[in-house]
């Protein structure tokens, strides 16, 4: 017989949620399999690639290394929660504008990790961005469009009328 399910209450993307799941499940599995939030991806399920990162109480965590049970009463934010009222988050806009999402598989984790960075540091340097995103692997972009998108979004979130530099879109 399977283990009896655990039931927890938590907040997911601002909504109060109750969910029942086998107690050994990771937050990653609970999100994808029990809450249908497949926007959170996995690349290794061993804590190596950063692809499954979500925010728990505002901090990026690897959802493959966190038990679902440990999230009772916590605030979990996934990529599905970033757009509000049908409007993309500035980071999502910037990633879309610059092609910072190619295959898009690592993108949710990059977006959420960057969101946590900008919450703590609205004016990050390029090095700050590299440090913050060093735990997330991307095989498509070479990270460059991601840095540029985070910088563009940061500027827009500070209220600046920022546009991509021409060489960002057209080369030199």
């Amino acid at each position, binding site marked *: 017989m*399977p283990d009896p399910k655990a039931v927890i209450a938590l907040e997911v993307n601002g909504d109060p949620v109750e969910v029942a799941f086998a107690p050994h499940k990771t937050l990653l599995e609970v999100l994808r399999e029990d809450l249908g939030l497949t926007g959170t991806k996995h690349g290794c399920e061993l804590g190596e690639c950063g692809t499954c990162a979500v925010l728990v109480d505002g901090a990026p965590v690897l959802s493959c290394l966190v038990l679902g049970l440990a999230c009772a009463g916590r605030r979990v934010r996934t990529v599905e929660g970033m757009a509000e009222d049908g409007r993309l988050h500035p980071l999502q806009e910037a990633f879309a504008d610059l092609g910072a999402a*190619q*295959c898009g598989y690592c993108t949710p984790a990059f977006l959420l990790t960057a969101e946590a960075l900008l919450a703590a540091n609205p004016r990050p340097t390029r090095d700050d961005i590299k440090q913050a995103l060093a735990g997330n692997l991307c095989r*498509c972009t070479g990270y460059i469009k991601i840095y540029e998108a985070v910088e563009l979004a940061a500027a827009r979130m500070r209220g600046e009328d920022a546009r991509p530099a021409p060489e960002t*879109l057209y080369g030199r």
Partner: protein
Amino acid sequence: MAGDRDLRVVGKAHRKVDAAAKVTGTTKFADDLALPRMLWCRLLRSPHPHAEIVAIDTARALAAPGVRAVITGKDLPIPFGILPVSQDEHALCPDRVRFVGDPVAAVAATTEEAATAALDLIEVTYRTLPAIGSPEEAVATPEPRIHDYGDAGNLHKLIDLEFGDVAEGFAEADVVREDLFFFGGNTHLPMEQHAALAEWSGERKLTIWSSTQTPHYVHRALAKVLDLPPARIRVIATPNGGGFGGKSDPFGHEIVVARLAMLTGRPVKVALTREEVFYCHRGRHPTLMWVRTGVKKDGAITAMHFRSLLDGGGYGSYGVASTYYTGALQTVTYQVPRYKFQGARAFTNKPPCGPKRGHGTPQPRFALEVQLDKLAEQLDLDPAEMRLRHLQPPNAVTANWLRIGSMGLGRCIEKVVEGSGWKDKFRKLPHGRGVGLACSSYISGAGLPIYWNNMPHSGVQLRCDRGGGVTVFCGSTDIGQGSDSILAYIVAEVLGIDPFEISIVTADTDLTPIDLGSYSSRVTLMSGNAALQAAERARELIAGPAARRLDVPASRLVFAAGRVFDAEDPDKGMSFAEAVQAAEAAVGTIGTVGSYTPPRSPGRYRGAGVGPSPAYSYSACVAAVDVDPATGIVTVPTIWIAHDVGRSINAAAVLGQVEGSIYMGLGEALMEEMVHRDQERRLVHKWPSLLEYKSPTTLEMCDVVTYLVEDPDPNGPFGAKEVGQGPLLPVMPAVANAVYDAVGVRVDEVPITPEKVLKALRRKGKGEEGRVGPTSFPDVPWPEPTRVPTPWEGGDGKAADGAHPAAAVRPERQH
């Protein structure tokens, strides 16, 4: 052609049509799919590198809780493989395993946990066989054979081609150099692990969703192995979470879930673990190379003789094509009047190698560009100047009968030389800092299909509805490179509508016409040309009735900004939707098709099928390095890259491909490596994990300065050539050449690890040659050469002895 008009969409930077889906996490990848009553599949894999399967007992597994089916090799006895000449794989090994990780049995159960637990209950009795760990061993050990086919013993493929008299060329040379190089094997490492979901319907129809780059070839493999009519099989390629060539073979797990779905009558899904992705592999062939090149004092090449020995791993995969590719493109950058290529691919008991970004061409490009750097030094020439002097001209036919179209390499070299400040840096920077230059070229799609046929390589259907909606159907597969978007931009350009209002339906064998797949950098050129033709036909169909309604000649109509109007009186016009309505009233439902077949290549010899392409892209690269002589650690602060893309369809997407290529090349140059532990001949992968297989993070990635050179090629849609693979190629040799500039040692192999740099520095310090790299090439039993006269010898593209007349119509090796 349409490219002559003022372009409104093409060439601009756009979002991709799926950008919003990607950034909101709503794109459905294969493992995001689930169906009611779905079973989970897991595969049992071999713990031995080489063994006979004596017996498999599945009874205990079948009796385990939740298990609904267990199958083994005898349930899927028909072999398959991507190339017609190497149908050497089974979905599950029936009698022999050939590498650690080869699948031998599969379980379908109600949960993934139950399927995993049941694997432990399958009892396999193996009789181990001697394992072969390297191509050198394969050369020395013809028996026992890993496969019962192949050109000699454990050598899968042997090639010997000679174009012109190389001995004569070497005799004319002022300097002749021989060098040995080794390119280590590495893997694609897509962030998405392969996954597949199969459903067998009550109507006895199979549907499979899979993270594949080549749904058409998966369709063919399923039909063959399952012995089903292709019309009963529907393959849907889900958006790939990265591919890079690693998802372009049909895989056993795809066939297994299909068979399990048919057996159980329930949907079955498999999602590979990261470890299993390392076993699927099909990555870069480790390649040993020997190059002999003769040059005049001004650097003009008089002859080149190139040998490669590829470590193929346990199966054929694309390996025959890969082997030819290690000898095909040496001739398309600089003039090589006489050329000889000998290539060999060995079977070894390791995960099979295949096509990774650049497919077979990064290895020889590394060797060639490092050797040119050595030659330039020997001749006291600037490496950039030397290359510029001897470029192939546009529209040339090479010694090995490749027809070049547009050729922007000269402008590429000039851009990076100027942008990097090359002339102030080369051989002038302080010890520990250096710059290196290298160039490359790549195909924009293979000239021939993988299996012989004379049908188009890409097809598009297009429908226009009376609301002004346009839907484009194409078999092409978006693996993140943006192929769906390319279709939209091209159709939008021709029909004068918003690309984001076009619906794109791709990669579904029930709904979309064939596109051969996302490999060989073929998709923009081939599906783009098919889309262009379909759109131009639609415009023509609509223009006549619209012109009549407006009472202007159709030739004066402009399709732009969602309107169809008179060029001489723009107010006189109608909306695109009204124009479609006029056309529908006049001729009925508006639908068109377009297709693309590459031009015929002039080569007619056996082996001429690999290398021809409708167009070649060109890249030049300068890498700056800092080398710490105390630790051997190489860091790359900046790479300058210029790429001749013909014409950008979407400039931002082109930049993204260039930057991604530089990134992947940097990983190959410095750290990425497939390594197998050889203790007691176990040949176990040393680090099948994302942590231990080192790839560049944000902290290792360099700055990239990109210059786009646009030299439109008449064969490309609007002049476009490839960009997804070519810019990777020059990175490894540019870094190697820069390391030499920095500290005066040659690491003639990749990855250029700190240990190798230190070893070379130590040797230099002791007064020995400051070099690390291979020192010998084994005695391969080369066949009699096929001699092909060059174009300037009056050749006709055929072998001199007129042998292999069949090759003219049916080249043995394609792709």
